[in-house]
């Protein structure tokens, strides 16, 4: 249930307050709900873009550490798998947003999808202990991250 739905229920609800304080109670609850709605950023496309960008940087950093033999393979593999899942979830969240039907946001979703696929390729390369495959996946990841950064500027809210 979204904050908007809850705010709607508050407007119509019969609150257990005395007559004089009834309006005040409802006003307070509404204010809290509206403040939360104004502050809440979890569902917005730009938040998903931030999550995706951060996840792609995580994947890059893990690959670099793995290549330098600074982390064990099982950790690198698990982190890349988890990163791919986070990216896929970010893509799903954007898709569920009605405004994602717009072409710019659709392009961002495509970039996130590419990132998720690149993270999966990297994970497969790490699991197979294949540095060449990992290196290719890293390039893929870098290209998709640049693509996301470019398209994300179009989604960012105007000042």
């Amino acid at each position: 249930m979204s904050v908007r739905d809850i705010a709607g229920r508050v407007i119509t609800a019969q609150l257990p307050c005395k007559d004089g304080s009834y309006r005040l109670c409802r006003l307070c609850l509404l204010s809290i709900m509206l403040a939360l709605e104004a502050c809440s950023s979890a569902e917005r496309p730009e938040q998903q873009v931030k999550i995706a960008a951060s996840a792609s940087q995580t994947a890059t950093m893990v690959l670099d550490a793995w290549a330098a033999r600074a982390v064990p393979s099982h950790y690198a593999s698990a982190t890349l798998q988890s990163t791919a899942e986070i990216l896929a979830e970010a893509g799903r969240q954007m898709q569920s947003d009605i405004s994602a039907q717009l072409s710019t946001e659709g392009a961002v979703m495509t970039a996130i999808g590419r990132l998720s696929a690149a993270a999966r390729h990297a994970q497969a390369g790490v699991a197979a202990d294949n540095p060449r495959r990992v290196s290719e996946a890293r390039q893929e990841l870098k290209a998709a991250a640049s693509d996301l950064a470019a398209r994300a500027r179009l989604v960012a809210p105007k000042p």
Partner: protein
Amino acid sequence: MKKLLEISLGIVTSVGGFLEVGSMATAAQAGATFGFQLIWAILLGTVCIIFLVEMAGRCAAVSGHTITDGIRERFGFHAFLLPLLAVLLVNFMVMSAELGGVAIAAELATGIGFQWWALPVAFLAWLFLWKGTFGFIEKGVAILGLVTLCFVVGAVMLKPDWTQVAFGAVPSLPEHDAANYWFMAVSILGASISPYLFMFYSSGAIEDHWDKTYLGTNRAIAALGMSFGGTISLGVLIVAALVLGAHGINQVNDYHQLPLMLIPIFGFWGFVLFVASLGIACFGAALEIALQQAYLVAQGFGWTWGEDRKPREDPAFCGVYTLALLLAPIPIMLGLDPLKLTIFSMAVTAASLPLTVVPFLFLLNDENYVGDHRNGIISNAAVMLIIALGFALAVVTIPLQIFGGS
């Protein structure tokens, strides 16, 4: 000389035992997302816990009562039931999170999923409590916990701009993600002002047979131990800001991201140090919380209690920590994300603060308990600030956790 040794050991114990999964996760998230901007929250939380720990030790040394014992006796059993149930529930969640922290460390070390580690870790903790003494639990694990100082070493090695760090000590408005910023601030406060920490400290003072001669020792341990402990949390925040934040990782929503903090500084040893820090710090905290659950119930019902006694001398006390350690791993075994559980349990901890701190304030102002050692204006003001903070945390944190936090 003996007192100096006790103070040193007390400080070492406080430092080694300060960091746990909550302070580590919240400081790392805050540093990665907001750089040094939330340093003030760690400082405020540390000041609050210094006051509370000092009061807990003073109350025990002067009155010979633990906080739980005192509240039950002063307000009666029925009035005591609500705080008892609230603290038991909060402790249960925090203990699950700590066991989850150890399980994650085990997963990072072995590659075997954290769910499989929850029960063996709980069993190991139970074995420590069943066979160990209070001194062994308190000092042994805490001394190993000094490994967490690697975050302070790492922060210094990264050569941060200390002027910027100092600016972070002053509260400021966020430039982006306002909701997330305030949620992080209250999570850090919730993680720093853990009721189990000062309640455990008061039980420990009774276990160690403190009397009025320990008031100076208590003050030194509370002030220095907690300050140095807070420095480790600062170290985590600075390292997260300079490593994760600088690499563009500013959304920490997966525990796999955390070991990356120390790798650019120490290489492979950074990974090892992170795993050791997480495992030892969380294991120590899990032991303390399991004991605290037993202290709470045994002191609340007036049973015989004491970690230094043999299990056959206080079977009910031992039964409580056994049951606690049997139930706490269940959420982790069911696959609940330990990082999410940690953040949520910090919010609930914050919400429960007024329930424990208000009765504590009455106790610390009652001549029958603390005689001439009652709270002064500064102590009372500090406690009232903590109550106000606790209330604000309860009102703000939970809706943010549900609607806006991540």
